[in-house]
């Protein structure tokens, strides 16, 4: 399979950089898969799991929102926060959910409340999906 360059960076460090076959990312408007020569797209990510297919070896990383930038040079994810799914546990997601529900309670405007509530429901879905 043809490969392309993929990078996953969080503010603290570069988490992944290399040639991959395919990447599945949780876009704001649904999951999407990127293969080689994907048309340039820029999108917001919601909290979810990024799945990297590197020569048949799959790697899963949890990201807490961010941006995806598919350009001619390759695919870059700017994650707000990212850790491998293997290191993820119920307590960490629980803490995120607690933060999110606090955000909902603290939100001053309707718009902010709507966004916070959306994030909360995404996190809860994710928790259920991972079976934690």
């Amino acid at each position: 399979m043809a490969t392309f360059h993929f990078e996953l960076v969080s503010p603290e460090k570069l988490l992944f950089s290399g040639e991959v076959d395919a990447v599945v990312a949780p876009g704001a408007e649904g999951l999407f898969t990127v293969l080689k020569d994907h048309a340039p797209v820029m999108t917001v990510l919601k909290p979810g799991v990024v799945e990297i297919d590197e020569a048949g070896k799959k790697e899963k990383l949890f990201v807490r929102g961010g941006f995806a930038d598919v350009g001619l040079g390759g695919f870059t994810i700017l994650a707000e926060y990212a850790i491998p799914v293997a290191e993820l546990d119920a307590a960490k997601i629980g803490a995120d959910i607690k933060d999110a529900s606090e955000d909902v309670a603290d939100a001053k405007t309707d718009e902010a409340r709507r966004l916070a509530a959306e994030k909360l429901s995404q996190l809860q879905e994710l928790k259920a999906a991972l079976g934690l």
Partner: protein
Amino acid sequence: MPSLKDLRNRISSVKATQKITKAMQMVAAAKLRRAQAAAEAARPYAQRIEKVLVNLAGGVSSGAPLLLSGNGRDETHLLIVATAERGLCGAFNSSIVRLAREHIQRLQGQGKTVKILCVGKKGYDQLRRNYEKNIIELVELRGVRQIGFEQGDAIGRKVIELFESGEFDVATLFFSQFKSVIQQIPTALQLIPAQIPANENDVAASGPQASYEYEPGQDEILATLLPRNISVQIFRALLENAASEQGARMSAMDNATRNAGDMIKKQTTLYNRSRQAIITKELIEIISGAEAL
């Protein structure tokens, strides 16, 4: 003429000081390595976000978000002054504060209002002397062992909140850029309105390399990207500052250790000389006493 006992005490106290400065130097060296690694690890993200921003901002024509274009006024300036929490690091804190102070004086000379947000206690202590009423807040990072993105994000959010409630028009960040152990450059960086790097024109000139598709829309992405960019810039500044602080402390403590060594040498010579003088004096007394008999 100090007595021998005085000299002995002085030498041992300088030796104790030298031990402390030597230890501080080594601690700073170890911390510097960690801080430098953290600063380097954060670099890719900042570069990428800048690239994305350049890409996006080039396409925005009118009705750009306020964070990018500013609110059109230039009356109230917010100065975010990031310094260290601790002293004993040479001119590190004072050089940042000096740069900020020059900036304040220039702005006030132009009749503008200045507000200051201090990050780190040392800068606050120094600025408080002249600009107490201009300081709106102090963010302390004392308890933080390793600066994470949360700290940068928290400050970023605060700044954006202030901007949205119309507290200021232009925000500038002051920090020290880490060049090397002996060189840290105090820097002023304008955050709001965002400064898009100058190579924007080159990108436009070379033609649009890729016609992007935006999901949801260009404006929505920009609206989430800009606040994030501010947090990232602040985070990066904090990391650079942390590395600079340790570098400055390391060289300051190196100097202090060397000075203590010089001092010990000088005092020891003095001690030996006066000891010999006393012995000689006693010998002379004995000999002249014996001759008198």
